[in-house]
């Protein structure tokens, strides 16, 4: 846990801290890291069925930070 906190702190040290009320731009749909559900499921079929590479996607973070 301590290492995680340290990693988070080091990352934060190099960046501008964005307050919870300054997330207007980050909440825009174009700023999302994942595609919209409809597009994402369709795109999953097109490339991986023709290529050897796959995987790598993580979820979470960015966005409006609400709740």
């Amino acid at each position, binding site marked *: 846990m301590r290492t995680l906190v340290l990693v988070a702190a080091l990352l934060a040290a190099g960046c501008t801290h964005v307050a919870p009320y300054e997330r207007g731009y980050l909440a825009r749909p174009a700023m999302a890291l994942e595609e919209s559900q*409809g597009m994402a499921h369709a795109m999953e079929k*097109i490339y991986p069925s023709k290529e050897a590479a796959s*995987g790598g996607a*993580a*979820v979470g*973070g960015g966005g409006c930070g*609400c*709740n």
Partner: protein
Amino acid sequence: MAATEKPDGALGALMRAALALPILALAPRAGAAVVGEVGASVLGYKERGLMKATEPILFGHAVIDDVWEVEASAVGDILTGASPQLVTNVNGQPMQVLTGASVYERRHAGDAKVGRRFGELTLSASAAVSNEHDYHSKAGGLEARRDFNDKNTTLTLGYGRANDHVGSSIDPNLDAPRTTDQYLAGVTQVLSPVALVQSSLAYANGRGWYNDPYKFTLTFYPDQPLPSLLPDLRPDHRRSWAWLTRYRRHFAAQRGTLQADYRYFQDDWGVRAHTLEVAWDQQLDERWSLRPALRYYTQSAADFYSPVIPRPAPRFQSSDQRLAAFGGLSPSLRATLRLDSVIVEGAVGYVHDASSLRLGGSGTSAFETLRAVYGILSVTYPF
């Protein structure tokens, strides 16, 4: 060879779950705060001379009471068209031969994910099933997501396991299992009020049946009267790494957003691949936005890939050109219309895979150029 599939018990339950999501819209009157969306989309995909696929998709997700997250989707694939099955050098150079048999395949798949937030920590569990008459897959996953520093930093850890069963319509005795464990670690970092980056590493360890039951290689040798015929023979394990980095940067004055994704892939079959996709999302007015994008892909061949059977015949051999060295360029354009009660998205794309597009130029000469177009239409109702 055609087979119609009835959704099995687990899949039926998932489809019912996906369709039940609109019922959550009634919950606000019952006191719980529900925010989310449901929608449907359809994908059409056509390869020059070969496959044609249509795919209807239903999906939805909701956040209940700021604490529960629910997500589900159901997919039905319909594939038609000839599928290459034989790579032969009967005419001198290796080439893919279509057997001429018309394929009609249906595939049903569904997935669901449920998560609960405990302060800054969110724990989720997911399940997915996919069924066609010669392939069945079940997968489950767990994910932990922790926000730090006013949600400027997010760490994600995930684990998943998939159990597949491979069958064959030309070999009814085939029912081969395959199990894959996947591990994921990712970091998302807000860089500024207009920029963020995410980087994640996924490791997959699979064991079981990897051979493609429909792929064969028929090789003629100048000094041998009879050709050699081999089925697809792959190792019984595969370990792979994928490192994905995504960057988003909004330009307020231009009302546009830059999106860039890069993935490096490497496995113990000898495949190394790079994927780079760059897109620009341009806000045109309050409702419309346009997103042109360009995706470039390059991969090296698997160690045991060969369009002709080497002599002496090796232990592993595959002429499946998905394991060849090639590159691909795919431009696409997406338009989005956002109204208060509905969001409509339409996208068109072109896929061009060729050996000449491989980074460095030295792709497999036997690789048959792929040209495909696709179109996606998606309608989403937020609530």
